[in-house]
């Protein structure tokens, strides 16, 4: 019978400074020569990470009350609109929000500025009520003046993602970066064998309540992410091909570091935010040992035409080719480029490794598992 080890046993080793922690890249290299049983006997925890543009991100802020108080209805932060449809001095600022359609400063920049400790201009208006008589405010806030600054990202850490190419004769500016005409380049955006959900494809250890690294501090998996999809076909290595599972994550933005949260602007698309996420994976049995040893050559994804507007599936490739700088599509060689930073993802995986090795980061059992089966609805235009 194959061996098992509980997360509590692993935590005991972590507390005693005896846990063996490796990054997913280190384990992928080991996996070439070792059986899952050997891997399991040598490794307790594997750290995974990603640092890519993740549009479905944002933060809740509570400003504190003025005297007399105000129920803010329309509000902006550095002129970027923030949501006024929650309680009096609560808001949600979305990463992609901008004042005007083509602005290159948006919600992600506001969030980064606040994390950096900068002052941000708050302007709000309200109709005024008996209990909240104030109707206007213009003031400066920063992360030490506000009560809460909670990053809550509804969809991060995509398990796999499309490769984008452009079949047309015109240059295209997309959220997958600039796509040169006539298949001039192929852009991709995951950290491959280092990416969290590719190392636990069935989400056996990553679930609701999992403690993670987010933006330079400790956070948690809050829920399945939006557009969570278990319906993608699996390849021979149990990896879903194409965009699949996602995570909703939460963390205290006051404790974050701008090294791991970066506002971004994609030409003609708009604002997004690079989010740094690291997730430790406990090697609880041989199946997990096999999963975490997944290599770039075993992780496949779809090549999609982002130029024509109908997102046609053109082929399939793997991350070994993508990271080599060139893929072949229908006999044609295409230069590749990443959009997510493997360099910063490696830094995150190393930080997490150090924190666990030194007993400062204890692993968690999921409070509940993520959905086993969940598909995607299409939006029908019904009127």
């Amino acid at each position: 019978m194959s061996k098992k080890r509980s997360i509590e046993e692993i935590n005991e080793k972590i507390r005693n400074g005896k846990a063996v922690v490796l990054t997913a890249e280190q384990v992928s290299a080991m996996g070439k020569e070792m059986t899952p049983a050997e891997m399991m006997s040598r490794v307790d925890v594997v750290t995974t990470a990603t640092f890519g543009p993740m549009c479905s991100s944002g933060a809740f802020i509570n400003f504190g009350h003025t005297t007399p108080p105000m129920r803010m209805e329309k509000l902006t932060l550095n002129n970027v609109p923030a949501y006024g449809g929650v309680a009096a001095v609560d808001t949600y600022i979305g990463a992609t929000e901008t004042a005007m359609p083509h602005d290159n400063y948006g919600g992600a920049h506001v969030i980064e500025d606040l994390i950096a400790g900068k002052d941000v201009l708050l302007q709000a208006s309200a109709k005024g009520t008996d209990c909240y008589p104030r109707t206007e405010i213009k003031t400066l806030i920063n992360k030490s003046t506000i009560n809460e600054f909670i990053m809550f990202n509804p969809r991060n850490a995509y398990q796999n993602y499309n490769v984008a190419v452009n079949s047309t004769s015109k240059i295209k500016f997309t959220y997958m970066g600039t796509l040169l005409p006539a298949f001039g380049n192929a852009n991709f955006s995951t950290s491959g064998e280092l990416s969290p959900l590719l190392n636990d494809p069935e989400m056996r250890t990553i679930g609701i309540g999992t403690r993670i690294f987010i933006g330079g501090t400790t956070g948690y998996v809050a829920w399945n992410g939006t557009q969570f999809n278990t319906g993608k076909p699996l390849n021979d290595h149990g990896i879903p091909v194409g965009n699949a599972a996602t995570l909703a994550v939460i963390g205290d933005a006051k404790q974050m570091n701008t090294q791991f949260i970066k506002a971004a602007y994609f030409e003609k698309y708009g604002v997004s935010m690079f989010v740094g996420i690291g997730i430790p994976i406990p090697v609880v049995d041989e199946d997990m040992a096999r999963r975490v040893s997944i290599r770039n050559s075993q992780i496949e994804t779809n090549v999609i035409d982002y130029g024509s507007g109908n997102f046609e599936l053109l082929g399939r490739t793997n991350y070994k080719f993508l990271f080599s700088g060139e893929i072949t599509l229908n006999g044609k060689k295409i230069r590749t480029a990443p959009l997510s930073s493997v360099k910063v993802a490696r830094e995150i995986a190393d930080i997490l490794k150090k924190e666990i090795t030194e007993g400062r980061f204890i692993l968690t059992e999921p409070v509940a598992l993520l959905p086993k089966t969940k598909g995607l609805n299409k939006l029908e235009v019904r009127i």
Partner: protein
Amino acid sequence: MTSKRFVLTFPPDATGEPITYNLIKKFDIMVNIVKADVSPGKIGHLVMEMSAPAKVLKEGLEYIRQKNVECEPIDKKIHYREDLCIHCGACSAVCFAGALTMGRKTAELSFDPDKCVVCELCLKSCPLNLFSIDIG
């Protein structure tokens, strides 16, 4: 033999003297024009690679400057704020000239200005807006 890319900036009243022709004919400098934007009455720019023995190249540059034409190595004109770079690789996607490349092992961006053809696509492709070009 030294090979280097330069940006020549012509004043609006530049004389009709054929500078490029003279560089080739009189100095025997191998000239490869990468980009040209020169019109009468306007400030003009010429991006070109010049190859010659170091001494000859120096004489050629002196000649250009004597003609009241500004001449700067390309890396003085293209600014990349490397300290702020997150090495995402988005700029390398558009750099068909191969000046911006990702290290296969290091996953770090490297920039070789002497391969730059000043297409300016990286300016729009960097999500952090870290490139600027001081031409025109």
